[in-house]
């Protein structure tokens, strides 16, 4: 029986540093199950560091991360990979690999070394390709795709991993606005259809407000605000976190807050 909070991530008293430099200090945050949370903030504030710690790619100096009721740092590596997928920033594909061969590698945590390719594996890959709209290009080499298509192929890889938790590090960087919206829409479709918990590091405040349920705003010296887009995107928070002087008005299409720099 799955409980409501099985796929919630919780950071408790996290302190993370690289060598002498402390990037995140005593941070506690809740990432609710089945919701989409965006982590925002200026460069160097530790957004990616936080995301990587949630996925156990870095070990914090202090504090813990729990997924449901399990301590992430005590879990079996493969068990964690079946519940949580992370797409790191700017991943590089092997030269000449096709979209399908790349996406198939997302099934790694579900497969033993000699287990044959199962129906479940095939179905997960097919569904992921369909969700990102690349089912007709699956045999194309990835280096022949456009930037937006390539990014969608990478997202298909983590979708094929078929986890209830999905972490994405700046998935829209380098994409034009149309493709940014395309990528975030397909992530939200997965979230709405399957109740997947999504946590994304993002730069664009207005897109975050449109697509995400919860925002986390980090500043140079720690957490500024966390909550609904309305609660987080307030003028004083933007000044404190980003040093940005801006007016916040309702988005004329969705009514979500829209940041207009002064």
């Amino acid at each position, binding site marked *: 029986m799955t409980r409501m909070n099985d796929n919630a991530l919780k950071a408790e008293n996290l302190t993370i540093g690289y060598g002498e430099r402390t990037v995140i200090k005593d941070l506690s945050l809740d990432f609710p199950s089945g919701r989409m949370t965006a982590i925002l903030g200026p460069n160097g504030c530790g957004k990616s560091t936080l995301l990587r710690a949630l996925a*156990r790619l870095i070990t914090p100096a202090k504090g813990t991360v729990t997924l449901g009721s399990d301590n992430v740092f005590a879990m079996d590596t493969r068990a964690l990979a*079946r519940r949580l997928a992370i797409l790191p920033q700017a991943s590089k*594909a092997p030269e000449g690999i096709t979209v399908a061969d790349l996406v198939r590698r*997302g099934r790694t945590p579900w497969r033993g*070394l000699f287990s044959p390719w199962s129906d479940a594996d095939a179905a997960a890959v097919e569904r992921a390709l369909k969700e990102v709209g690349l089912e007709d290009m699956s045999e194309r080499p990835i280096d022949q795709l456009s930037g937006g298509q390539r990014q969608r192929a990478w997202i298909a890889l983590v979708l094929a991993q078929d986890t209830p938790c999905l972490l994405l590090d700046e998935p829209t960087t380098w994409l034009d606005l149309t493709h940014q919206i395309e990528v975030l829409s397909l992530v939200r479709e997965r979230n709405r259809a399957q109740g997947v918990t999504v946590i994304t590091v993002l730069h664009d405040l207005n897109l975050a407000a449109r697509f995400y349920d919860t925002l986390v705003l980090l500043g140079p010296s720690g957490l500024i605000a966390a909550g609904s887009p309305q609660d987080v995107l307030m003028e004083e928070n933007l000044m404190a976190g980003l040093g940005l002087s801006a007016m916040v008005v309702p988005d004329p299409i969705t009514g979500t807050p829209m940041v207009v720099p002064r």
Partner: protein
Amino acid sequence: MRAMAVAFLALVLAAVLTLTVGVREGGFALLWQALTAFDPSDPAHIAVLSIRMPRLIAGLIAGAALGMAGTIMQAITRNPLADPGILGINAGAAFAVVIGSLIAGRADNGLMAALAFPGAAGAAVAVFALGGGLKGDAGPVRLTLAGVALSAMLLSFVSAIILARNEALEVFRFWVTGSLAQAGMRPLGYMAVAAVFGTALAITIAPRIEALSLGSALARGLGTKPGRIQLGALVAVTALTGAAVGVAGPVAFLGLLVPRLARRVGGHVLRRELIASAVLGAAILLFADTIGRIVIPPTEIRVGTMTALIGAPMFIWMARRLRAGASA
């Protein structure tokens, strides 16, 4: 699948040529006779079975092993220039054997088997440490430079030792450029076992290496342990390279050429790529050896020289493409 069949046919052809082409004419009929109705008093039959057959076996072991070692190394380093020759692993094995037999004062097959593998492993670890590979993803340019430097250094030590001891030219050729001549003297049995072990290990961990070739962060996200995969790959590359050097000396560039062709045959599924690398590696090495035996008779061009003749221009071409495309 058709490409794989073509590769297999090429290997069979290369094997037949290795057994039949030579100074002593006799062709396929002689081979058939020697295999089916061996006559120990016929010198031509003895030539086929005691000279050509070991040469074929050595070529199969070295070619298949170097092809697979190159494919594993390119997958794990994400460096299209990775090759046991270029990255100094061949040279490490050769250096260990030559200096070991200098110290021990003997050069038997058992000693060679005991030294080639630690030599290969030591060089692999050293080149990764020098190339910055231990701290994370090694950049292709740094890793390649470190390998070329290490390889040049170790092979110049090897030449110095052999030349100082007034060894026969054939010994020098074997340990510096690689050769399939006098293959009957090599520890074919030991090295075949090592090559089979390396192959089995590589085939087993291939799916994990595929995950690692997406970068170590994503590999961990996919539930694999990069350190363990790297260790497994290191053991496999060491076994394969050590076996190849043991039977053919430090043949260069084969591990550079073969993986590119193997990808055309096997696609991006590493197990298929490995099988294709073994088949193509053996076929190319045997063809190169046969051509080297017939171009300027009665002398032979050693197979290591032949692979360098084909491989060096390829290396330059690939290095130029690398500079234009990828970052260091």
